[in-house]
């Protein structure tokens, strides 16, 4: 082998290595877990490849329509979950290549696009509809509000400063759906703050600082006037809805982040944590009443090999939880009632299931939607998006 050919060989090897490593790293593949919404008799699932909104008959899983914007994109698309209200369905759509973020309003029965408004950044959380206005948060830290009648953004949403620049409420992204109640908008943000805004003007009424980032919306217990919200510091916070002050004497800490929405039911509140536990707590002080771990509870408090991103769901007497690894379990007072039969082919579940009177609907990470009977977990139907059949 000559010197030149050796040099050429070494150069080619380095080049190959460079290309391989660049391919390994490169641009990160952006993903989110698929949205799942139940409104009336229709399931709205973000599914398929490329993803679009599938409208499914909740009774048998047949496709009643689809929605996908006309805009072509070659990059990744981020969809928010769908929200239905005021005779329209709303969904956030962001194309990674053009970074065009848009909130679409479409006909909830036919999937026909009605109108759209643009945002400045990724729309990841589901919008919230209240009194003719649809509110949504974006990754620029702004809360947007679109008037359904005028089909345009309301003045002051998002706030603009004197120089014409965005003056977002939060300093970090908003990944949690806003909550609207009693003329106020409550927003939990990644900047460790909960904001209360005037639902009409957008004026900030109060801000409340907590110890960690929040990606789940607050839950309001109206009779107590208290907002419950979990954070990435593992703590659950109780905040007075009127003033934004933390409720004195309330405290609960999980063994990992809390990413799910709190479920208030009767005289208890329920929350799941990435530590794999389902916790039943006293809403007055956060004291643990019971907890459920489907595997073995480690000394650290974590549930072995279990992660619960999806929130707990009320299934009329039992609480249903779905683990990241695809286990579905119905729990009553820390006792397991039923779970998915082992060996069922499943993909990860990160999306909180939705429940109707007698059925529970789950969307897997691969876009498959399954309907099960609440009483015993028996499978009623399965929807597999056409592209991944």
């Amino acid at each position, binding site marked *: 082998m000559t010197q030149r050919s050796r040099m050429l060989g070494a*150069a080619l090897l380095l080049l190959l*290595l460079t290309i391989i490593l660049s391919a390994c*790293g*490169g641009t990160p593949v952006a993903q989110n877990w698929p949205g799942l919404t139940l409104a009336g008799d229709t399931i709205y699932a973000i599914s398929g490849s490329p993803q679009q909104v599938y409208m499914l008959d909740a009774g048998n899983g047949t496709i009643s329509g689809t929605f996908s914007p006309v805009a072509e994109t070659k990059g990744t698309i981020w969809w928010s979950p769908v929200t239905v209200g005021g005779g329209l369905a709303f969904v956030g759509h962001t194309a990674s290549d053009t970074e065009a973020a848009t909130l679409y309003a479409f006909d909830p029965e036919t999937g026909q696009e009605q109108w759209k408004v643009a945002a400045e950044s990724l729309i990841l959380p589901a919008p919230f509809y209240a009194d003719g206005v649809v509110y949504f948060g974006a990754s620029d830290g702004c809360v947007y509000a679109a008037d359904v009648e005028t089909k345009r953004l309301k003045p002051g949403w998002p706030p603009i400063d004197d120089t014409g620049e965005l003056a977002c409420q939060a300093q970090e992204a908003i990944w949690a759906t806003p909550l609207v109640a009693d003329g106020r908008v409550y927003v939990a943000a990644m900047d460790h703050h909960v904001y209360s805004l005037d639902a009409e003007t957008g004026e900030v009424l109060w801000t409340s600082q907590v110890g*960690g*980032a929040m*990606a789940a919306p607050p839950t309001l217990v109206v009779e107590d006037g208290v907002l419950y919200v979990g954070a990435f*510091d593992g703590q659950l916070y109780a905040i007075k809805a009127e003033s934004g002050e933390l409720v004195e004497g309330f405290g609960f800490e999980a063994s990992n982040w809390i990413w799910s929405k709190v479920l208030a039911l009767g005289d208890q509140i329920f929350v799941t944590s990435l530590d794999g536990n389902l916790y039943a707590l006293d809403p007055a002080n956060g004291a643990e009443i019971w907890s459920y771990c489907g595997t073995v509870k480690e000394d650290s408090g974590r549930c072995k090999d279990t992660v619960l991103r999806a929130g707990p769901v009320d299934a009329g007497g039992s609480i249903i939880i779905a683990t990241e690894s695809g286990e579905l379990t119905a729990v009553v007072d820390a006792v397991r009632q039923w779970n998915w039969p082992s060996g069922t082919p499943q993909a990860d579940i990160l999306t909180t299931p939705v429940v109707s009177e007698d059925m529970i609907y789950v969307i897997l990470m691969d876009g498959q939607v399954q309907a099960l009977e609440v009483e015993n977990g028996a499978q009623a139907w399965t929807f597999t998006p056409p592209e991944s059949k």
Partner: protein
Amino acid sequence: MAGITDIWTTFILQPMLNALLGLYSVLWAQFWLAIIAFTVVIRGLMTPLMLPQQRSAKKMQEIQPQLEELKKKYGKDRERMSQEQMKLYKEAGVNPMGGCLPMLVQFPIWIGLYQSIIQALGYQPLQILGLSGNIYPFLSSLWVQVPLNRYFLGMDLALTPQQLGGLTYALPVLVAFTSWIQSKMTTTGATGGDGQAAGMGQSMTMMMPLMFGFFSLNFATGLSFYFIISNIIGIITQGFISGWEGLLFWKDVNLGSLLPFGQKPAPSQAEASKQTQTEPARSQKGTQSGSKKRKKKKRRRKR
């Protein structure tokens, strides 16, 4: 496959990620400072591996005259030549493959650091979800740091120069430049000769910086910080070991050398005098044989 992923996560990704987060929490919540501190720590840990290589490079420079002697003596007998070379290397304590080990060790560090940066500075939920599982339970105090400050002078450290555009293209250039200086300082001796090692050395001096520049173009800008700081530390330590001549790069810059099949670069004064002393016969012969071949070709064409 899952086993390999678990091993990688446990032994590479998690330690690096937690170290970065720990540094971030004590360095005023500045991720770029955490990367710089992390680089210094890694270079410190790698000193036992790097120092012998750097000393070996210096010794390589010192034994160049002896190598030239060997070339003169055994130039035609390749086998004997390589035997004698190896003997000389052994006597001088030079390991010609010494540069490979630090390089091999650094590959997992680069990949691990890239993954750590992407996960720590994740801008979408799945990345951040992965982060929660990789922070050690006993470092739960780091949870409050999320989301991390991902900017340095307005530049997003998790994005690539291609995504950011503008002045960020200076980073791959800086990476390639510092890498070139470092390679040049390390291989000054090896490139001085005319043998196979010299050829390889020259090739590496050009290829490695280009490779790193290309990496930096396609990877998160945070990784460029690691490369630049690591190269600067390498330059400084090499300077203390074998002198600072390699830093005077403009003396030896010859654009012709950048062309792989172009004109052979004009040697520097020192090299030129060395070549005239050691290789007159060979170069003459080379010229003669070349002209003879050309004449033969001409004759064939005439026929």
